[in-house]
């Protein structure tokens, strides 16, 4: 009884209605895809928090994610180190900044990385039906809309128990993505400054000489 009272008090204090699982998520997923498909591009800034049980504080990094149609993605970490991942349906490239110079890596097994990058594009474009072969997808709604993807492959599930994509209820912005592991540890990517329908300058997704991110941001008027 005490526990129930405390739980109710916590809900009231939080002010947010609890999440409710949706029995048939298909209409919501279709709505999500319809809304997301109306945008040619998206720009997001993120903080990535790696939560490891033994550390008192999560391990943080900062960066930006840019997605352009049809399937281009740029995932750039800006601190505490600098790294760029670029991908499309054909290829993937990674650059690391060492002593002030960008160096392109000779990636090992790039097809794996390309696949992960493409799944990130599909999630952000609301193309969740494309992911149903790899994931079991469910939806819960409330103060946020939460799409949960559980890997179907047992081997993958041994490393990644689920991915939660948390969005505003009207799908107007992605709040965070949480990658849960069987151990209870997780990686949380918190998004902010989401901008949809921006026009990226040439070179933004170039896998040979990517345009500097400061120049990209300045070009679409998002300079800090």
């Amino acid at each position, binding site marked *: 009884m005490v526990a129930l009272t405390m739980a109710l008090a916590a809900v009231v204090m939080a002010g947010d209605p609890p999440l409710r699982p949706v029995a048939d998520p298909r209409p919501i997923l279709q709505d999500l895809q319809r809304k997301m498909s109306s945008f040619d591009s998206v720009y997001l800034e993120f903080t*990535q928090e*790696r939560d*490891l*049980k*033994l*550390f*008192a504080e999560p*391990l943080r990094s900062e960066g930006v994610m840019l997605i352009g149609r049809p399937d281009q993605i740029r995932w750039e970490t800006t601190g*505490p*180190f600098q*790294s760029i*991942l670029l991908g499309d349906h054909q290829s993937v490239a*990674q650059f*690391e900044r*060492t*002593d002030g110079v960008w160096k392109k*890596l*000779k*990636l*090992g*097994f790039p*097809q*794996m*990385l390309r*696949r*992960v990058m493409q799944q990130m594009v599909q999630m952000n474009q609301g193309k969740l039906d494309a992911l149903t072969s790899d994931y079991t997808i469910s939806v819960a709604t409330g103060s946020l809309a939460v799409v949960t993807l559980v890997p179907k*492959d047992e*081997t*993958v599930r041994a*490393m*990644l128990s689920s991915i939660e994509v948390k969005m505003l209820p009207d799908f107007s912005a992605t709040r965070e993505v949480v*990658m849960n*592991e069987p*151990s209870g*540890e997780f*990686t949380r990517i918190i998004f902010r400054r989401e901008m949809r329908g921006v026009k990226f300058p040439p070179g933004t997704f170039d896998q040979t000489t990517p345009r500097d991110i400061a120049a990209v941001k300045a070009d679409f008027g998002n300079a800090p």
Partner: protein
Amino acid sequence: MHRNFLVLLLVWFAAGCVTPPPPVNAPRPVASFQPDGLVTQRAVLTARGRQFALNGYLAQSATGGRRLILTEVFGHVVADVLVKPDGTVHVMRSSRLFHPAWIERYVAADMQCIFGGAPDAACPVQMLSATHFVVERRWYKLDLQIVETQPGPQPTELFDEAQKAKL
């Protein structure tokens, strides 16, 4: 596809584990680090012409030892090792990417070479700057940069090998 990829990596790294390290005559590092603190690193591992970016988180304790956790691009832990002050090595977590023998033989050794304070002559490490190190063995090269250092005591559980059971 995932399974094939992981199996390939496993075979690849396992092959490397049986290769003995080469004789070494490289310059040895002289860097010094806070006895207590957390050191964040970014590294590129090159093996057989292919490269992998890794994050490293090294917790140091003057009394407890050193604990290094390696993660891949999206944060998954691929190696986790504790080296006690007496030099004993405890592999706390391994992965298909880094299996236990490889972590014990190479990850722990390279960590001690760079952060050990008094590296022995078998350390194939070059110190390019106070924050930039290169470890080069016959079959792999590790280019490591220290990107962040947070001084201060770390949780004691990090240095307790018995915690392995709880991971």
